[in-house]
């Protein structure tokens, strides 16, 4: 028997490793939380790792999940063992193909990290709503409930599908299983070979399409035979349960772990039994063990094979003593009698009762009552306490037939109460929680710790990591368990005997010690030494330390990191302290193991990296100090710091709901707090005041030249520009600064450039672009990054005052120049986007220019996350309450979704026009014709039309008749709506291209803004068709081999589409002009906006000035194509950038995405760089010719023109 290794991996890796070993073709498309499976498969293939048959699997990234499933279908039909990985909407996109694959009895396994399907909102988190949507496809469905099972069941599914010919969905819970790191026994290649019957693989090949043995498949059938043909596959489905059980038995024979179609856990004489599947089973088993120890007769029936539902096996697995059952579904089907598993259980029991297909001996000896519950939607916590609550509820005389657990439902009162003090954690388990930032390496270090303990000691180890949804200053919480037994605790740690806070400021904003167990250990990364730290702690923290009698340690992790050259990466220092204090290994052995782990992890990165890490360990241990906690009441005397000022608002909903979510109390909100249809107010990001910057830009008016560039490029709208009359300064704070505004039309006006100190992320982009330099010291500019704490109080006062100064009159602003447009109020502010984000400045500019009449259709991606992920949104309103209305539908559908918005706006305007004509005599012919014929082209005409509409509504109110009310309801549409269809290149170039292409041909007035980072940014840098040649990205690990798709020219080819390619950092004026042109064009406009991204491997502080290099190399030529020019007899294509003056190679040296290939594979890099240069040369040549092209565009009469 094989000597198997114990490894620590997450569920995705566990499943993907089997999939890669047992398949020949892997077609994928990234989607959270399944992306990592495809990435790992691609990585293994790029390293030449073979499958068990000895060939390297082909991995291909497709344009969508529909494409991945379709190519998988093709590969299967051609006889290759094929798989894919997906989740949520991705799985839904595969459904049409899945019907085909099953209908053709094709053996395959798709591995699913089960995730919520988007409904009232998107959620990236785990539940079964996606897999449940596949019930009718004819696929077998096998559930894995833990990391180890994700490996085992992946193999069992693969072996079974080959025998059964029925395709299998192998699913496990997104995040809870896919991202949990756990110690598992690794299957060997021989184990896998033992399970896979090669003769069945050959049979699969023999059935394949081949010209040597031609057949027809996928015919069209008429009513005469379709039905019979559909029934012909029945025997295969009937055989599946038997085959799966036999496969499980074969697995057990060799590996020792015995799985069954339905597995019973608990008391053999249980009276109350749960039925469920998925990761929640871990929590349920723990609860049952405790309840049984307390004498309760309870049990759990685990569903392993969900489809085909094996009724007899199900009934056979039930103890005869069961009186009541609760079937727990991790999904919701509104309108159904119950959720799917519940319905199946009820039906199975009924069939047992009624006889039917169930044999006499399988009929249930019991007649249990069945209740259905929902739990854990979108990774809602599911704990042993909740399980206990369900069992308790089953004792009630009249339990709720349908209930929920895990929330407080005060609307339909379906929820069960649970006792949070019910815990199953055992004393011999080390439970550690770490609070850190995404950027400080805490999670990486903790994954490492799990590995060190898991792979070097007999202890079992588990790691689970919680991230907030910000892309800058994101907080991470790591939950680590170390136990002498395998760890099934599939829920967050509620009481930790070790708590570490890796960032001092987090003790001011988070209740980090809430989870600390009495007598536990608290490690704080503190700039203050042990004898000084106490006076700097918030009172609440002091109280908890004293009351819980915590052992309190400090280490200056940042000092250690700084002194050892590790910058902000405090991970190594903090990890060393954890090992020194946690006591799971003798201190010296622990430190040696960390060093070994560092050698493994960082060895290939060079000696200097190893030296740094080793020094950090040694120095951290030297600096680790125990704090002598002051005794008694004296301990609380001195108040600590608390700079937390967020959520000062009078808005009831925001205060009640948004603020609670922000403060981490979202779990406590009842159902009644939620809007019923997913609607939220805009303008809420401004309440967060995250204050994450260490340095902020400080203005020096004596140097400023009023250019407005700083405000234009600020990714977070945290630098503002305002011009105002002198009189506006009455009551200004002492430190408020202003200067004379150089504008001949406003000679008496002053100007202020103001930072929002708590909203700035400290990225420094504004300072980088500032062109005004001091004559005395050149490095001093008109704005300069300075330590925030030196300026915070003053700038807070200043910003508050600045906001009170009236906004500049839009009708008087020169919006077609940068300094003019930056006077307009941004209606997109303080997003959670990355430091230095290249996308957000475009959205902000759009919101300034058109936001007060804009509707935004936003494709899923980075922009939908920083734009619409709770708790807040950066989209906001002006003082009139106007601002962008925003909606994210899906990823793939955004162009069509946005088109629908346009159609409705146009239809409403048309309808208003019809009604206006009916009221013409009473409203006045001239007034009505002004309203109808208004052609809003600038702020003055827009303001005039708004006035007319206001007058119209006042008049209509007087009429008090149905038609008048009807007209009033559509009157706002008489002011031209600005429809913006926004998304990234993954959407526009790949998954949404078909729809985008169609929308371009409709001639409707939509503005499509593509925030082009050249990569799938949100899911972690996978290549898209916008990825430039030679760039390294996931699925292009050896450098992208194909040139970037020229989306702009594809659109130009239509003739009637306004197309612009812009880069705000390279040419702000061209960007501004293009945005104005696009919006004013009454047909479809496509604006491709160059957006730097952290996935480019550049210094994001210099991202905007770096755009100049991008344009100078010709990688991103600037152009505008305006059909109106062609109609006017001019050349429509204008090249706005100069002939390239830099070689691609010079750019390649400056960007990690290009440079890394030069380092990893210099020969290939040389070849790709040469090709990339050729692409540029060729494209430039093509564009130069385009600039001379004349066209005769047939003006098809875009609406309203």
């Amino acid at each position, binding site marked *: 028997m094989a000597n198997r290794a114990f490894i620590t991996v997450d569920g995705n890796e566990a499943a993907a490793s089997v999939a890669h070993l047992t398949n020949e073709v892997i077609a994928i498309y990234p989607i*959270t*939380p399944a*992306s*990592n499976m495809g*990435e790992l498969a*691609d*990585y293994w293939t*790029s*390293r030449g790792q073979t499958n068990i048959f000895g060939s390297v699997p082909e991995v291909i990234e497709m344009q969508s999940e529909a494409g991945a499933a379709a190519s998988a279908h093709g590969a299967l039909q051609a006889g290759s063992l094929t798989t894919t990985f997906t989740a949520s909407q991705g799985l839904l996109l595969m459904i049409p193909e899945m019907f085909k694959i099953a209908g053709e009895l094709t053996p395959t396994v798709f591995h699913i990290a089960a995730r919520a399907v988007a409904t009232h909102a998107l959620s*990236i988190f785990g539940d079964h709503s996606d897999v449940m949507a596949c019930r009718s496809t004819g696929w077998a469905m096998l559930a894995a409930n833990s990391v180890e099972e994700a490996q085992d069941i992946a193999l069992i599914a693969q072996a079974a599908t080959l025998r059964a010919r029925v395709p299998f969905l192998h699913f496990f819970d997104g*995040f809870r299983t896919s*991202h949990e790191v756990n110690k598992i026994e690794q299957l060997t290649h021989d184990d896998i070979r033992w399970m896979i019957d090669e003769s069945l693989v050959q049979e699969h090949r023999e059935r394949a399409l081949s010209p040597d043995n031609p057949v027809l498949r996928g015919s069209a059938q008429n009513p005469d035979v379709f039905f019979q043909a559909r029934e012909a596959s029945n025997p295969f489905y009937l055989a599946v349960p038997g085959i799966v059980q036999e496969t499980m038995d074969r697995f057990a024979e060799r590996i020792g772990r015995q799985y069954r179609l339905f597995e019973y856990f608990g008391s053999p004489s249980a009276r109350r039994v749960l039925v469920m599947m998925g990761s929640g089973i871990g929590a349920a088993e723990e609860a049952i063990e405790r309840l049984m120890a307390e004498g309760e007769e309870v049990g759990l029936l685990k569903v392993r094979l969900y489809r085909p539902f094996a009724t007899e096996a199900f009934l056979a697995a039930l103890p005869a003593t069961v009186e009541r059952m609760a079937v727990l579904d991790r999904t919701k089907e509104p309108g159904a009698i119950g959720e799917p598993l519940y319905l199946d259980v009820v039906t199975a029991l009924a069939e047992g009762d009624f006889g039917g297909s169930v044999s006499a001996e399988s009929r249930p000896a019991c007649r249990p009552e069945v209740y259905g519950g929902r739990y854990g939607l979108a990774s809602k916590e599911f704990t042993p306490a909740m399980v206990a609550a369900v069992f308790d509820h089953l004792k009630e005389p009249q339990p709720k037939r349908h209930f929920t657990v895990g929330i407080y439902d005060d609307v339909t009162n379906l929820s069960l109460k649970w006792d949070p003090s019910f815990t199953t954690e055992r004393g011999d388990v080390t439970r550690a929680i770490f609070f850190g*930032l*995404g*950027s400080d*390496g*805490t*999670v*990486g270090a903790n*994954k490492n710790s799990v590995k060190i303990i898991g792979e070097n000691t007999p202890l079992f180890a588990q790691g689970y*990591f919680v*991230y907030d*949804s910000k*892309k800058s200053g*994101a907080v*991470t919480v790591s939950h680590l368990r170390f136990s002498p037994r395998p760890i099934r605790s599939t829920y967050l740690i509620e009481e930790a005997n070790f708590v570490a806070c890796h960032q001092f400021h987090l003790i001011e904003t988070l209740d980090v010690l809430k989870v600390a167990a009495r007598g536990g250990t608290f490690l704080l990364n503190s700039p203050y030494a042990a004898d000084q730290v106490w006076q700097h702690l918030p009172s609440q923290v002091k109280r908890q330390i004293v009351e819980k009698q915590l052992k309190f340690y400090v280490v200056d992790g940042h000092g250690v990191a700084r002194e050892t*050259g590790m*910058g902000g*990466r405090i991970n190594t220092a903090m990890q060393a302290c954890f090992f020194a204090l946690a006591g799971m290994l003798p201190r010296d052995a622990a430190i040696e193991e960390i060093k070994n782990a560092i050698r493994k992890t*960082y060895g*290939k*990165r*060079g*000696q*200097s*990296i190893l030296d740094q890490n080793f020094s950090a360990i040694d120095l951290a241990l030297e600096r680790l100090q125990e704090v002598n906690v002051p005794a008694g009441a004296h301990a609380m005397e001195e108040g600590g710091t608390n700079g937390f000022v967020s959520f000062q608002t009078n808005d009831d909903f925001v205060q009640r709901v948004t603020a609670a979510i922000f403060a981490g109390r979202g779990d406590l909100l009842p159902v009644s707090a939620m809007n019923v249809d997913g609607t939220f107010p805009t303008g809420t990001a401004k309440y967060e005041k995250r204050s994450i910057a260490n340095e902020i830009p400080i203005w020096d008016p004596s140097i400023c030249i009023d250019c407005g560039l700083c405000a234009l490029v600020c990714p977070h709208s945290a630098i503002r520009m305002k011009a105002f009359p002198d009189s506006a300064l009455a009551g200004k704070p002492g430190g408020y600064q202003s200067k004379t505004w150089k504008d001949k039309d406003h000679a008496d006006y002053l100007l202020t450039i103001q930072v929002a100190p708590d909203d700035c992320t400290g990225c420094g982009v504004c300072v980088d672009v500032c062109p005004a*330099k001091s004559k005395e010291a*050149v490095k001093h500019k008109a704005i300069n990054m300075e330590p925030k704490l030196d300026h915070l109080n003053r700038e807070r006062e200043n910003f508050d005052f600045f906001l009170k100064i009236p906004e500049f009159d839009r009708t008087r602003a020169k919006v077609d120049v940068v300094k003019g447009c930056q006077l307009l109020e941004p209606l997109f502010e303080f997003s959670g986007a*990355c430091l230095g984000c290249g996308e957000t400045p475009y959205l902000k500019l759009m919101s300034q220019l058109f936001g007060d009449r804009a509707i935004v259709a936003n494709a899923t991606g980075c922009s939908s*996350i920083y734009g619409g992920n709770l708790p807040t949104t950066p989209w906001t309103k002006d003082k009139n309450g106007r601002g962008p209305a925003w909606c994210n539908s899906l990823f793939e559908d955004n162009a069509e979704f946005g088109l629908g918005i346009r159609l409705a706006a146009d239809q409403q305007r048309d309808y208003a026009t019809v009604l206006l004509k009916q009221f013409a005599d009473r409203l006045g012919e001239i007034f009505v014709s002004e309203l109808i014929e208004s052609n809003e082209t600038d702020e003055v005409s827009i303001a005039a039309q708004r006035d007319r509409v206001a007058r119209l509504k006042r008049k209509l109110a007087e009429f008090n008749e149905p038609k008048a009310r009807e007209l009033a309801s559509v009157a706002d549409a008489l002011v031209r709506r600005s429809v913006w269809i926004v998304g990234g290149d993954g959407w526009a170039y790949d998954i949404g291209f078909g729809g985008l292409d169609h929308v371009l041909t409709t001639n409707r007035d939509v503005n499509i803004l593509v925030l082009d980072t050249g990569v799938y*940014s*949100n*899911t*972690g*840098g996978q290549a898209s068709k916008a990825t430039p040649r030679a760039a*390294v*990205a*996931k*699925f*292009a*690990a050896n450098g992208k081999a194909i040139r970037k798709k020229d989306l702009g020219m594809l659109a130009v080819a239509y003739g009637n589409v306004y197309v612009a390619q812009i880069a705000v950092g390279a040419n702000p004026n061209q960007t501004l002009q293009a945005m104005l042109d696009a919006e004013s064009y009454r047909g479809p406009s496509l604006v491709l906006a160059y957006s730097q991204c*952290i*996935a480019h*491997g550049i210094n994001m502080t210099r991202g905007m000035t770096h755009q100049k290099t991008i344009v100078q190399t010709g990688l991103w030529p600037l152009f505008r194509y305006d059909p109106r020019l062609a109609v006017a007899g001019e050349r429509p294509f204008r090249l706005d950038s100069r002939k390239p003056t830099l070689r691609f190679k010079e750019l390649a040296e400056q960007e*990690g*995405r290009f440079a*890394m290939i030069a*380092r*990893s594979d*210099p020969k290939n890099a040389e070849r790709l760089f040469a090709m990339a240069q050729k692409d540029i040369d060729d494209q430039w040549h093509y564009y130069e010719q385009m600039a001379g092209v004349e066209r005769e565009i047939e003006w098809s009469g875009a609406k309203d023109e």
Partner: protein
Amino acid sequence: MHADLSTTYLGLKLKNPVIASAGPLTGDFDSLRRLEDHGVAAAVLPSLFEEQIALDEQRINAFEEYQTFSSAESLTFFPQVKEFSVGPQEYLGLIARAAEELSIPIIGSLNGSSPGGWVRYAKLIEEAGAHALELNIYFVPTDPNQSAADVEQRYLDFVARVRNAIQIPIAVKIGAQFTNLTNFVPKLAKAGADGIVLFNRYLEPDIDLDSLQLMPQLVLSHRHELRAPLRWIAILRDHVSMSLAATSGIHYAEDAIKLLLVGADACLVTSTLLRHGIEYVDELRRGIQQWLDEHQYESVEQLKGSMSHSNAPDASNLERANYMKALVSYSPTT
């Protein structure tokens, strides 16, 4: 009968005094082979910069670590890469191949930045098969608390450390800015240096007047730059027995002759080969040969040092008088 061009440098017997100094031409094997074909006597490979290696390592590390595990949806932003060619492997590979396949001596060159780094990389270069090692020591002191003696001691410490660690000959390449080279250079010899290369040319930045930014730019040497090594080799020749090599501004055979006259054992050339091509080595060799033959010298050895400070007929011109004379001779004539 032709004069014998051979010379001894760092104890290495060279067939002529022309050495290709550290630069782009010695950075790849193909051009090294061409240099050999055209008759250079030895080649100094470009400097292995510890600082550069560490910087690369840091950059790649930062690149791989940047934003990892910071978001639930994107645990990383780049694909895993098997390995990056950071560190000295490529450089050491070049030394090994050149030492193996070429017949001329291969001299490694090292610029360390940490005490451990000097020793570690020196050993690696020796192990790779270099016949000698040139220590390219320089740094720009900006700390006013650091005295001239401190700076010199730093050089001496580096040399001593490396001397203790390796067996092959060591040359030290220094800049001209020392208070008294006749005092300092013998100390270097005592610390273990077998030779001195005069002088290093620093990367001196320019200013872009449009952007008001400092622009680091390396420019090729000019011929007048050979005057400094010429003077100092002449003076040092009388004080030390170690090897002396000249670098900077050696563009023509006549330049080499002059330096050999004052006592150089070898002449290191780069700029002139970059300007005229590798074939120009032939020209230099022929020029030296021709001059020696025409002037009836038997050998380079005979020529070397025949105009050192003590052997020159008007040695005061190597000192301050040189300047005096220049002023006088520059008087306007009527």
